[in-house]
């Protein structure tokens, strides 16, 4: 092998070393911004800048830009709050005793405030406060009220959201049922009223949810409560169980 061959071999061995990055490249990348260089390495999209101004927008067409008009980003939520009110269903509520007579609940109403946790795509749990006022037929000057704190476990009959690959779709109509209990204070105002501590167990709910957006929806539900402990009315036996039915509408906001 002559001298010239050794020379070429030496040149070939040196060349790969120049293919590596030098400190000059490193300085350049630092000056450009390591995050920009790093992102460009993965994204590698050659998109030219838009021409400025309205005229530019008319003349030039954007390329390489995803049309987001039909794309919505899911915001995962772990909790929700709920607030609303409703009416008592007199025909589905025990009549209040008034001595030997019976009085039907009419014009009674309830307000409800709750805080819930989305345990999974079809199970939820919730704590709530309910404030109810009862008025009765033929009893203008007497009313009853109760304030209770309750805990419920809800089961949605369909998954609230469905994941298919990278796409997550929210369901807009979800029926549900719930079971739980409450306790609180219960007062039939006036002489001989059956007042005191009360337990609402079981408390059961059957309803449906309509989502207005991905986060906000309306719940409309029938609620049944078995009130234990006090009787229901005036001059009645303190004890036994009494049935109360409400229909409640509320806003549910996920976050």
């Amino acid at each position, binding site marked *: 092998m002559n*001298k010239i061959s*050794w020379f070429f*071999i*030496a040149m070939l*061995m*040196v060349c*790969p*070393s*120049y293919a*590596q*990055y*030098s*400190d000059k*490249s*490193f300085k350049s*990348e630092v000056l450009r911004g*390591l*995050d920009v*260089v*790093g*992102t460009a*390495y*993965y994204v590698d999209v050659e998109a030219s800048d838009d021409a400025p101004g309205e005229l530019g927008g008319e003349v030039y067409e954007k390329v390489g830009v995803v049309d987001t008009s039909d794309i919505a*980003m899911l*915001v*995962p*939520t772990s*909790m*929700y*709050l*709920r*607030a609303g009110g409703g009416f008592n269903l007199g025909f589905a509520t025990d009549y209040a005793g008034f001595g030997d007579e019976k009085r039907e609940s009419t014009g009674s109403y309830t*307000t409800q*405030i*709750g*805080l819930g946790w989305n345990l999974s795509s079809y199970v939820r749990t919730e704590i709530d*406060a309910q*404030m109810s*006022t009862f008025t009765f037929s033929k009893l203008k*000057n*007497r*009313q009853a*009220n109760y*304030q209770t704190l309750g805990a419920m476990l809800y089961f949605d009959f369909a998954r609230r959201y469905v994941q298919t690959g990278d796409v997550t779709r929210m369901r807009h109509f979800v029926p549900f049922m719930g079971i739980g209990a409450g306790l609180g204070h219960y007062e039939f*105002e*006036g*002489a*001989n*009223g059956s007042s005191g501590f009360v337990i609402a167990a079981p408390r059961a709910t059957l309803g449906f949810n309509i989502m207005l957006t991905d*986060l906000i929806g309306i719940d409309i539900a029938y609620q049944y409560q078995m009130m234990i402990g006090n009787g229901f009315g005036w001059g009645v036996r303190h004890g036994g169980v009494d049935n109360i039915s409400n229909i409640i509408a509320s*806003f549910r*906001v*996920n*976050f």
Partner: protein
Amino acid sequence: MKIKLLISALCLIATSANAEITYRVRQITTPVNELPGGNDREALARVHRFYVGGMYDFSMWQSYTDKNDVRVGGKNTSSFDIIAGIRIYDTFRLEADYTRTKAKFEGISLTGNTLFLNALVDARIDSMYRLFHSQHLIPYVGAGIGLSGNKVDGAKIDDKISPAAAVMAGLGIELGEYFAIDAGYRYMYMFTPKFDVIKNFAPTAHQFRIGARINF
């Protein structure tokens, strides 16, 4: 021959030396959104830890009939709140709420200086999504306990200071970073101050409120 070997060895030294300083930027973590307060559950709270506010209250006081069939009919009143709060997390805040309680019933009026300590949960989405999902409507629910120093006309009371409790829900309308309008509902329950004319009367009210909060 020795010279040839020496040249080759020198070339190898240069190659290996360069191979050891291969500068190449690689992304090893995903960059987080650069929000002013960070990107965790205190992202907003860290920037706007405190707030003050005021509320107008329209109160519907509830009628009551005692065991002796003495009845007081509730009336509607107006009053106000002054609020100072601290944001613990973006979704949780505590506030001191001074309420000028004005309760009116047939024959009895009660004026109280009521101080509540309220705990509230805001339905605010996670900070990770705030760059992509602007949220101006922030509903909230909460509960509070407090004490009320009472003065009564038309009756006498045994307890000039009585406990009070409340649950509330509402909607915060955030107009920018510093200012929010607040519209809400509060159920207020005052433990009985022991009126002489009507026993066990615990004033309760449905209150509809509107006001504003300023963050700082």
